[in-house]
């Protein structure tokens, strides 16, 4: 039985709690290793061999290799960890948000310049369901 959480109905959001942290442990430990240039060099030389050091699930491993940024979050990754991998790839936080939202860099940047995503219609999952969003 799982505990009901009051933040489960926030749309388009993963709350990185202890359950997600446990699930994503090896994935996140891999990501933070990208903080060091030596590790970035080794990973970039042979991604598969480098990933063998972190016993993550096959799904997590595929998400890393395919740079499935939302997939990594769904499998227990946290944005502050995955952003280290993104930085290795030359992707900054705003570009990463452009990818994760599916908007693309230009449209996302434009939305931010216009004051960002409004909280109106974006507080509860049912509001998204009414509009046919995931």
């Amino acid at each position, binding site marked *: 039985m799982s505990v009901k959480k009051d933040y489960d109905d926030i749309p388009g959001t993963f709350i990185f709690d202890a359950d997600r942290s446990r699930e994503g442990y090896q994935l996140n430990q891999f990501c933070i290793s990208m903080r060091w240039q030596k590790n970035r060099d080794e990973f970039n030389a042979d991604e598969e061999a480098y990933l063998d050091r972190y016993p993550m699930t096959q799904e997590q491993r595929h998400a890393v290799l395919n740079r499935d940024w939302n997939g990594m979050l769904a499998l227990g990754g946290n944005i502050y960890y995955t952003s280290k991998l993104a930085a290795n790839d030359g992707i900054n936080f705003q570009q990463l948000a452009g990818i994760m*939202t599916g908007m693309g860099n230009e449209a996302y940047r434009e939305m931010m310049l216009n004051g960002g995503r409004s909280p109106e219609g974006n507080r509860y999952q049912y509001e998204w369901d009414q509009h046919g969003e995931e």
Partner: protein
Amino acid sequence: MARITAGVGCSHVPAIGVAMDQGLTRQPYWAPCFAGFQESRKWMKRANPDVIFLVYNDHCTAFDATCIPTFALGCAPEFQPADEGWGPRPVPVVKNHQRLASHIAQSLILDEFDITILNEMEVDHGLTVPLSVMFGEHGPDDEWPALVVPLAINVVQFPPPTGNRCFHLGRAIRRAIDTYPEDLDVVIFGTGGMSHQLQYKRAGLINQKFDRDFLDRLTTDPIGLSQMPHIDYLREAGSEGVEMVMWHVMRGALDREVTEVHRHYHVPASNTAVGHIILENTSIQGQAI
């Protein structure tokens, strides 16, 4: 005796650090963001604190997932700017007031705040960006104009400490600083926020009404504000907006009566609403909140 003279609330967006490090602050995108800190830099020169007690969070940089302390006090002699994946920021090494930090550590634990003590730590943008915006450009060979005692709070793995707990910790920090015998002026920084969500499909959430109300209530209703439940931050201000609990530590360390001497609010800096406030204690021996 040491005393806290003022509190500073300040966002710590990494892109602000990048903009300063790359000399982009006069570009049209960044100019309005930095314009609001001109007055702050003048104020910092006048306030001229000996020590900054800086409340911030590490962003999976110094702390990996092996150990997640809720409250961790920096007691090392100095703190090197960390490589967060794009190279260390070209800013000065952060130097501690180690004896004051030791005193605060001891005082907090005896005051029943069971903090973690850090004798080695690198610091990321969460700590160095507020120093940069408040002090202006300083290169790696310079020195920051004040010593810094860092307090790192976990706001990455849910749940962070409650706003109420943070507020009471601020009160305990004040009790610690008030009992330190050296004549020191201390300014306390609460950093992070304001509304922002960096992840998944709702990324880009900004709630200006929430943010402005938060800034207002730091003077009009600080205790009530500290009672806000986490779900309100997450839903209204974005998953990363919950960083704002750290501002309650700053507010709890100040007097009951404070004067707002400066405020700045700007959208956007990258994915984030930039919020900034300076609150001065109004009298030399003001009453603790």
